[in-house]
């Protein structure tokens, strides 16, 4: 039954993009965070996507998507001279997360557009299912 497969695939896409938006939200919220559980300033996180085999057999197997891993940025921290800050080192320098707001916003726009594309698929599949059901109402 292809139409339920369409819903399955679109929902994997939506879940993956939603997780991506969550990570962007976390990056933006923590753009000034100097303390984390792991110690040190917050590091930028990004989702890595991978195709997901949903077990649909066939020569032209369609695939869903899943988040393969969440990558933590290893870029050097930004430094600012703030001697009064409690997390300043002996030279009075504070390390801040290396987060570029422009990059995050571009990423956010891309993620929400991709999410919308998956919503469009669901809407289209729903219309198709309704039109197939209308065959039953012949009388």
């Amino acid at each position: 039954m292809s139409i339920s497969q369409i819903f399955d695939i679109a929902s994997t896409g939506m879940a993956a993009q939603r997780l991506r938006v969550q990570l962007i939200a976390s990056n933006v919220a923590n753009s000034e965070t100097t303390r984390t559980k792991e110690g040190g300033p917050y590091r930028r996180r990004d989702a890595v996507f991978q195709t997901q085999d949903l077990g649909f057999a066939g020569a032209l197997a369609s695939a869903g998507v899943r988040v393969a891993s969440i990558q933590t940025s290893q870029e050097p921290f930004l430094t600012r001279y703030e001697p009064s800050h409690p997390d300043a080192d002996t030279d009075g320098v504070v390390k801040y997360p290396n987060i570029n707001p422009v990059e995050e916003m571009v990423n956010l726009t891309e993620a929400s557009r991709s999410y919308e594309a998956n919503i469009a698929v669901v809407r289209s599949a729903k219309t198709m299912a309704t039109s197939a059901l209308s065959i039953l109402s012949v009388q």
Partner: protein
Amino acid sequence: MFDLISGNQMIQAMDLSMSLASKRQTLIASNLANLDTPGYRTRDFSFEGAMKSALAGQISPSTLAATSPRHMQGSSNGFLPPTTDALQPSSERNDGNDVSLDRENMLLARTQINYQTASTFMQVELRKLYTVIREGVAH
């Protein structure tokens, strides 16, 4: 008596058209879900080509082996169109992904219309049969 439906070429062709359209919609869903997956290549097949070759009887509608003449033939729902067409021109991004949002969105709408057209034609055909069954009496 059921030859009225199974022997009806219009209904057969529309059945085929709907199967192909929903199969293609599954692939479009897969492409849109993997819009941001690195290395993912667009998956698609030629609707017209698959329709032509299926109508020409090149593809057996059944994937089940009939080892006895008394075996029933399966329906056309299980078969897959032969292969995928290369995208021309392909616009590959830096991450090796070549899904085009515009192309997929356009195909999403077009495939949905193909499906709905087929379903409407099938409804019209079934309504004709129903009129015959009711001996032309209006309902």
